[in-house]
């Protein structure tokens, strides 16, 4: 699988994502600098985590106006899978490839911890190897992961099964107390309406190695192996 991994000034999980992609799905990873105007031939686009442009103005806002975004948007609309993790998710919302926005965590603090997620929909190319309602544990590390969208958007996301992951407790209950950042309906990850673009705040690329005692993020990557190209 050929992967384009986009690097913005301030990306800092690019190398982590590269290693995960190489190890888990033997991807050939092209590191694409944000000033490029077109992507190499690609089966998957990954927008990694980090603090593109220092999170200045709004997280992801400046990166979403980079040259390379034109081609990413074009590819995304054509159906190329796009995975945006953390800052990548923020960039996808700023680029309007995904609805809503990610605002400051409700506690106003950066938070880095393992969180339980419930796989709400396994019928996507990113979640097919999980079971529906499987409870998994993936770390978050962000200051602005509080998902917000107007009511009608939330309803639409819920109705069309476009919420993929929700924060929950270890038994799978999705409640206010298990919401780490204030996201509406405990939303941790969503897809676009054609379901080829996933944005998620938790970091699956930090959860595949038994050495770091967490492997629950693996299937976000390995699910992609089942795409019939």
């Amino acid at each position: 699988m050929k992967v384009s991994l986009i690097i913005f000034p301030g990306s800092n999980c690019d190398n982590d994502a590269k290693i995960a992609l190489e190890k888990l799905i033997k991807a050939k990873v092209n590191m694409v600098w944000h000033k490029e105007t077109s992507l190499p031939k690609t089966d998957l686009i990954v927008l990694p985590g980090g603090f593109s442009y220092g999170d200045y103005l709004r997280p992801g806002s400046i990166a979403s106006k980079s040259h390379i975004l034109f081609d990413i948007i074009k590819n995304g609309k054509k159906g190329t899978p796009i995975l945006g993790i953390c800052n990548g998710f923020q960039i996808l919302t700023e680029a309007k490839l995904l609805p809503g926005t990610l605002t400051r965590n409700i506690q106003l603090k950066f938070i880095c911890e393992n969180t339980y997620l419930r796989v709400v929909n396994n019928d996507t190319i990113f979640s097919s190897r999980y079971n529906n309602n499987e409870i998994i544990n993936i770390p978050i590390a962000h200051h602005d992961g509080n998902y917000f969208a107007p009511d009608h958007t939330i309803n639409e996301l819920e109705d069309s099964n476009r919420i993929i992951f929700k924060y929950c407790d270890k038994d799978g209950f999705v409640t206010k107390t298990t919401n780490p950042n204030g996201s509406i309906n405990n939303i941790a990850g969503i897809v676009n309406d054609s379901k080829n673009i996933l944005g998620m705040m938790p970091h699956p690329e930090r959860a595949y190695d038994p050495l770091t005692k967490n492997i629950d993020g693996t299937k976000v990557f390995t699910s992609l192996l089942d795409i019939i190209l």
Partner: protein
Amino acid sequence: MKAKIFITLKDDVLDPQGKAISKSLKNLGFEGISDVRQGKLIEIKIDNDNKSKVFNEIDNMCKKLLANTVVENYKIEITE
């Protein structure tokens, strides 16, 4: 010309920073505070004397980059 852009959160969007400020002000003994909303101010100097052109230009900037209209409102003030 100089433009001031005031960016504020829409009324229906929770503003945890405003809430924290409000709590802190109350702790300091300030009374009668019913709400605090925090926003940002951006100042832009622009070489153009045509006020309405400048306004349109800035409005465009707001839509394209400066404000996130999903959650934010903006107000533009042009001064000489």
